């Protein structure tokens, strides 16, 4: 037996027989055609949930945070859980748009626009919770360093204030990155639009973009720099979110593993959310050739890796609790497993440790239905992870005499469910009015886009030339002769 390296052509990124023009038509047709009936139905449901959110938040502001299920040891409940959950979901979008861009992963172009939109709306949902949990929301501006008549300034040593800066920077940078990516596609829609209103609206959004190469030259530089900035940013944001816990002295929180563990969990849940949304949208909008099975498989691989990182972090937590010799740390870990919230722990184990193991099988990774089910389970699991961290550590802290059982009230539940209304209202508007796939970027990764794939004499495109450039090394085993 000997090992031999052989070039194997990588599967095409875009399936089917597409030209630049057919890609434009495929993606631009949704924002430019009339609204489908199903969209109105979905939008009505999303709006209903949004109204529930606005109503419950209104009541919260009217009556105070006493309407939540918080009690004396558990001063943080669903609000922080939901905050961390939504921010974590957002991280996949930045990972896809920035980190995979720096690694030159051409397959990201099929889903980056979509995932970035998800990031922005998820961060909006996340940002709601810290804002409303302060109780007196009308003075929320105190978190910002604004000169005021009281001569008071925020405490820059507090991780909670770091969070304000991290999340607001994250939202702003994601929005800028998203908009920069959208400008050339708005120009495409402006040029394709038939109605006057659409021409004017997309025209304003496109800022007069012509596709001039002198502009592309600065644009590519800007895109690369933004990706380079967003990469450490996304890692820093969930690190700082984990500092909210890790910098305190509560057993189960005061742990150096939190930053990497939170970041891995964030990417894990985010990929699950992108998959859940993508598998539905590609069906409805007929984008199966762009958001194809190969891309789904790659995303499943990312989910499998990060899922196992998270599972490894759980093991490490248990090991460190035992090895530290610190009884409170050991106690809290034991309480996770057999304590009053053990049901949550076992849901978590099922969703986050057992479920991703199915992804070792290639046929499951390439199965749309099973992937969809796994992605939903992972999202549920990641919610329970934050539940276990936030609630269990607080409600069973140092002194058993001060322990209390935390349960949410109706308002906790309504506000959480309502954030889906906020998310889907924006997401549906995005699907309806914006190009949901980055048109210019998809064209850029097509083999036709590379001048080297053309014949020197006739200037015609040669399909065969495109293949070696996308080749991949694979080990094949040969029988010895």
């Amino acid at each position, binding site marked *: 037996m000997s090992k031999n390296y052989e070039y194997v052509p990588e599967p095409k990124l875009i399936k089917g027989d597409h030209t630049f023009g057919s890609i434009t038509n495929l993606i631009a047709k949704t924002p430019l055609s009339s609204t489908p009936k199903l969209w109105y139905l979905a939008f009505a449901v999303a709006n209903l949930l949004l109204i529930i959110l606005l109503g419950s938040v209104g009541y919260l502001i009217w009556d105070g945070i006493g309407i939540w299920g918080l009690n004396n040891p558990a001063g943080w409940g669903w609000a922080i859980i939901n905050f961390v959950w939504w921010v974590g979901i957002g991280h996949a979008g930045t990972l896809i748009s920035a980190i995979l861009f720096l690694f030159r992963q051409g397959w990201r172009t099929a889903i980056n626009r979509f995932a970035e939109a998800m990031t922005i709306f998820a961060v909006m949902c996340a940002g709601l919770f810290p804002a409303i949990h302060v109780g007196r929301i009308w003075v929320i501006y105190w978190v910002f360093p604004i000169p005021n008549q009281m001569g008071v300034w925020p405490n820059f040593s507090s991780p909670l204030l770091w969070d304000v800066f991290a999340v607001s920077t994250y939202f702003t940078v994601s929005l800028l990155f998203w908009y*920069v990516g959208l400008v050339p596609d708005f120009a495409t829609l402006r040029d394709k639009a038939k109605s006057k209103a659409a021409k004017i609206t997309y025209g304003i959004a496109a800022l007069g973009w012509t596709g001039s190469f002198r*502009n592309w030259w600065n644009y590519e*530089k800007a895109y690369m720099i933004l990706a380079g900035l967003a990469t450490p940013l996304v890692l820093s944001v969930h690190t700082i979110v984990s500092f909210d816990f890790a910098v305190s002295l509560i057993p189960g929180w005061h742990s150096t593993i939190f930053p990497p563990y939170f970041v891995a969990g964030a990417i894990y849940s985010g990929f699950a959310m992108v998959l859940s949304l993508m598998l539905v949208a590609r069906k409805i909008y007929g984008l199966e050739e762009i958001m194809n099975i190969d891309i789904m498989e790659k995303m499943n691989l990312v989910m499998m890796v990060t899922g196992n990182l998270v599972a490894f972090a759980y093991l490490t937590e248990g090991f460190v609790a035992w090895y530290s010799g610190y009884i409170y740390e050991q106690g809290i870990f034991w309480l996770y497993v057999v304590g009053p919230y053990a049901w949550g722990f076992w849901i978590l184990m099922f969703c986050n440790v057992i479920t991703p193991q199915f992804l070792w099988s290639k046929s499951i990774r390439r199965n749309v239905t099973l992937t969809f089910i796994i992605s939903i389970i992972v999202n549920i699991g990641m919610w329970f992870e934050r539940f276990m961290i936030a609630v269990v550590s607080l409600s069973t802290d140092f002194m058993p005499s001060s322990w209390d059982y935390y349960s949410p009230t109706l308002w906790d539940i309504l506000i959480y469910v309502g954030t889906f209304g906020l998310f889907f209202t924006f997401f549906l508007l995005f699907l309806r009015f914006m190009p949901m796939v980055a048109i210019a970027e998809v064209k850029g990764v097509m083999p036709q886009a590379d001048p080297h794939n053309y014949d020197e004499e006739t200037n015609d495109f040669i399909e065969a030339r495109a293949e070696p450039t996308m080749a991949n090394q694979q080990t094949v085993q040969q029988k010895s002769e």
Partner: protein
Amino acid sequence: MTTKNKNVHGILAEFRNPKELIDAAEMVKDSGYNNFDTYAPFPIHGMEKAMGLKDSLLGWIVLAGGLAGMIGALALMIWVMGYEYPLNISGKPYINIPVYVPITFEMTVLFAAFAATFGMFALNKLPRFHNPLFNVERFKKASDDGFFICIEASDDLFSENEVSKLFTDSGATHIETVYDSE
């Protein structure tokens, strides 16, 4: 013809594909033209060499933005925590640089990202209300599947006949004069 009172903006030529565009751009550059540009629905690899473009200045703008964010954030925190509103937190020093790292980092990234985005638009002279190229109906393809070169009338070597001949020689499928107004 009603072209009498119009100024010529330049001559626009369409090519079949990225390869022809890049070859034509090289020819235009080698013929000595400076005020020309190529238009495509996506950035084409190697075009900067064919057109002879210098490296973008954007990196320096972003560096300035990032430094402004970093220095600004540090200065604000040192001033507030050290002098304006000192808070004693577990007896730790008032000016405590390590705890300022997260916010300094975030502000550096924020200002650098603003510089990258708005710097890019400024270098590209966008937003722009109107562009003479939009007078050409055909130019709509530039954001779809068309590949164009425009040599502008402001170039010293510009002459309609010469430019048209150059484009014909380089294999343009369509040549059209662009006017400042419709």
